[in-house]
């Protein structure tokens, strides 16, 4: 692990707090192009532990209808990786209100990142204070072969997913090659398509818990209310909420009060 990685906000967070962490996902440029930093600051004010910002993509195959639709709206609004970096440029500084200190992950698909240029992308992440990325269609094997040195050079974590179908050997491999945390997909599904926590899911959570992985774990997909957050938090270091928050933003708006109200319903 490099010097930069040890100072990363994500690794620092997990070294300070290991339970009931809440990671909220939203799509950059949704509902409006300029909502990105408003929502980011609202989430920080509401006390979430990590924020995952979606880089919209035309063909987000691992996502469900809600996130896909928000991606489409954001693209129509004119969002791009370049615009997102411009919007995030000052968020870590105190020049424009309270500085953003919450760890930031960017989530998206590999093609826009390839077109932006992987080195350019990592450099920009470092400049604006992005701590890690989730690129679901860049499998670990291809990441290690082609891109890992670049990400590590700029201190950008690459978070990998495991699912109920991931073999034990592969989980060990992912754990050995991951820094930050492991994203546990709760069930065989796309985002936003699962309701409740089944016994099968609990068995899977217990199986992973018993593996004593070196990385902390956050559970995502299907976490949409207090009950599912509470339940999944018993089996991991916390959980990730996405589609439910996108629906909330669509219906209740992006004000700090609206965001705080949503976070409170999840947490308490």
């Amino acid at each position, binding site marked *: 692990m490099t010097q930069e990685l040890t100072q990363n906000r994500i690794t620092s967070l997990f070294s300070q707090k290991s339970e009931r962490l809440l990671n909220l996902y939203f799509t950059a440029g949704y509902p409006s192009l300029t909502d990105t930093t408003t929502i980011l600051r609202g989430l920080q004010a509401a006390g979430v532990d990590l924020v995952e910002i979606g880089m919209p*993509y*035309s*063909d987000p*195959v*691992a996502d*469900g209808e809600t996130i*896909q639709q928000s991606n*489409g709206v954001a*693209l129509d609004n004119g969002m*791009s*990786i*370049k615009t997102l970096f411009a919007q995030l440029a000052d968020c870590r500084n105190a020049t424009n209100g309270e500085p953003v200190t919450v760890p930031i992950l960017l989530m998206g*698909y*590999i*093609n*826009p*990142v*390839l*077109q*932006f240029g992987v080195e350019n992308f990592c450099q920009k992440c470092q400049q604006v204070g992005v701590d890690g990325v989730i690129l*679901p*269609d*860049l*499998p670990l094997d*291809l990441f290690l072969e082609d891109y890992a040195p670049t990400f590590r050079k700029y201190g950008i974590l690459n978070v*990998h*997913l*495991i*699912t109920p*179908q*991931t*073999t034990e050997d*592969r989980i060990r491999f992912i754990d050995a090659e991951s820094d930050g945390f492991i994203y546990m*997909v709760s069930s*065989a*599904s*796309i985002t936003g*398509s699962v309701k409740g926590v089944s016994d099968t899911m609990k068995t899977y959570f217990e199986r992973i818990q018993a593996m004593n992985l070196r990385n902390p774990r956050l559970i995502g997909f299907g976490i949409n209310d207090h009950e599912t957050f509470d339940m999944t938090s018993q089996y991991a270091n916390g959980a990730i909420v996405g589609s439910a928050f996108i629906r909330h933003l669509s219906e209740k708006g992006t004000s700090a009060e609206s965001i705080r109200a949503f976070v409170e319903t999840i947490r308490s």
Partner: protein
Amino acid sequence: MQTTLEPKTSFEVSNKGFYGHFGGAFIPEMLYPNVEELRQNYLKIIADPAFQAEFWQLLEEYVGRPTPLFLAKRLSAHIGATIYLKREDLCHTGAHKINNTIGQILVAQRLGKQRIVAETGAGQHGVATATVCALMGLECIVYMGSIDMERQKPNVDRMRMLGAKVVPATSGSQTLKDATNEAMRHWINNPIDTHYIIGSVVGPHPYPDMVARFQSVISEEVKKQLFAKTGNENPDYVVACVGGGSNAAGAFYHYLNEPTVRLVAAEAAGQGVSSGHSAATTALGKPGVLHGSRTILMQTEDGQVTEPYSISAGLDYPGIGPLHAHLFESGRGDFYAITDDEALQAGFQLSKLEGIIPALETAHALAALEKMNLNADDVVVVCLSGRGDKDLSTYSKFL
């Protein structure tokens, strides 16, 4: 009839699924176990003598292979070269697509899958998939863009009659790209009991290689048939249309390492390469990742996939298979962009000259003949990938 289904040497896929710079398996972790299961087993399965026996028996007795290699005399006279048509339109279900679905359904059975999901553009792959699912008694779900469902209604009805559930893809351009997204999502949600029958030489490794092997029966037969007719198994040109590129991959396969045979691919230029309504991938695209592989892709500067357009639903796709991307980049293949109008004219021409109504997809390959500056002694094989019955409503608007 026997074959080896052996890979060719210089255009052989690497063990990680790459053809030169193109290919690979860029898939979410949710699909990793399925794709890995397939990768580890497909070569073993198709090399098994019991598989081979069943595959070839079905191709002969159910599909109707070998398909004829027809010397098109009136078309030859018109073009000014010797033109042979490989009659894949005479396959059961009306297109080459069934060569692949027969192979994949046998693979799926051996992997213990209960359900099949597929995407379709023109409906030919959907019909071929629904057909083999009926034959084998497997549940079948086909995703099809809602616009394609309208323009290819006869095929929608055929799929339903064969017992398949046809699900409209309503996102994006509501065509093949979006149907593929939805089929992939379905597979992500049903990873254990479902096999995804991809219909073209696209998708994550091993699909492009597996589909090309199943379609390679086309060039294998052409070699034998051409030798029987002319004493030379190699033509000067092999011509095929390319959307994803499965009929082209099959027609080119056994000629990949025959440098005297030029491989010619016809892409859909739609209303014109520069019109903003086109699917001419090599003319308009650049390297990128879509649906699991690195290939040439129509996209914006920001890497968002461009909505393609073609009058032909089967060519209405913003990418091409990674093998074709490699053929293009290496210069091994010649790529022509054919407009809707040129394809329609070629379709009408073949109908009148030879009494064969080609699919609109195939009509693009036929239109390429007019652009190739052929010599009188050139021997050309055109892959007549499918029949035009499904396109009658489109053709009839221009009668």
